């Protein structure tokens, strides 16, 4: 479980994936992002797949946690 969790619940499309992109490009390092819509999970997965970054998706009580290995 990564230490840093980016809480992107409640953000309009496509802000969650923009925040992930910023984090990947600026800080990097393994981190996790918490989202609460299916479309955010899909957008982020597509972005990571395209960049060749591996990730895991796990549903939780309060949303979906995406752990990013960048």
């Amino acid at each position, binding site marked *: 479980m990564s230490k*840093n969790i980016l809480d992107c619940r409640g953000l309009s499309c496509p802000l969650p994936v923009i925040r992930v992109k910023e984090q990947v490009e600026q800080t990097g390092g393994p981190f996790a992002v918490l989202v609460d819509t299916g479309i955010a999970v899909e957008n982020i997965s597509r972005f990571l797949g395209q960049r060749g970054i591996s990730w895991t998706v796990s549903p939780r009580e309060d949303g979906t946690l995406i752990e990013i290995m960048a």
Partner: protein
Amino acid sequence: MAVWLRNNLVLCGGVLVGIMGAVLVKFGNPANMGICFVCFYRDISGALGIHGNPVVRYLRPEIIGIFLGSFISALIFREFNPRGGSSPGIRFFLGMLIMVGGLIFLGCPIRTIYRLAGGDLSALGGLLGIPFGAYVGLFFLSKGYNLGKARPLPGWVAVLPLVLFGGLTVLLAVKLWWQTPYPFFSLKGPGSQHASVLLSLALGGVAGVLFQRFRLCLSGGFRDVFLFNDYYLLKGFLGILIGAFVANLALGLFRPVLVGPVAHGNFAANFLGMGLLGLSAVLLGGCPLRQLTLTSEANLDGFVTLLGMFAGAGLMHQLGWAASPAGVSPGGWLALAGGYALALGIAWTFTYSRVAARSGACNV
């Protein structure tokens, strides 16, 4: 094959939507208007009496069908979550601006594709306008634009969209059974042209499931290309273009002309109109179609935007600012200029004047 299918499922969904559009035109809908969110919201707005333009009033059953289809799909796939509260007032207003742009061009992103697929070359202005508007909107998004977070809402709130669409269904049934004067239906013009109610409802329902599953969104499609060089969502619209084009050819509906039916040929107005729609859509996080699917998922922000679009259609037609095949009126140009000023003002305010929103938006 399996991988190709997974990557191109959205293309196949688009092809189906394209074919359905052509079929609806064949069975009575106005030319190149199989499904058009801007046009249909305007017609519903007229049927309810929000505007009084006698030629564009009809309770389009496609919209009820799309709502139902995507509502059922959201329930099945557990995406029905009551939420809202991300600057609803601003969203209502941006919804109105979507209609200002859409009613200057005379269509939504989907109708832009249908118009091209039907041979209407004037739609090119609109097609170029969407990426222009999306690009301007993205500039603000990348600088920190944010309308704030939506939060979970109590379950009873989710009933509100159901009440609206239940009410529309009852009104439609009452009109058909008893031929009541209200809701108002056009006797001539585009509002009087429509496929049979059952066909519209059924194809709308299928389209609703496809829209909910594939998250089709043309402004989002261009947005992803600019942001991530990702063409996934755009493939859906390529699918609509292919499906509608082939079906139009097969049904004898393809007629290449400079300016098609229910359209005008002013390139600047078409470009700037769809530009305003694209800009407002990116600021909202979804085009007119997405706002309806969000509504069906109990997203009250999408619902408020939908109401804003009904209001916007009412205003544009009540004041005579909407374009027509005759072109754009001076009031229409004024509305377009005012629309850009307001949209850019909102974008600027929520990017630069609310610095806290950016840092507070995603807590690391």
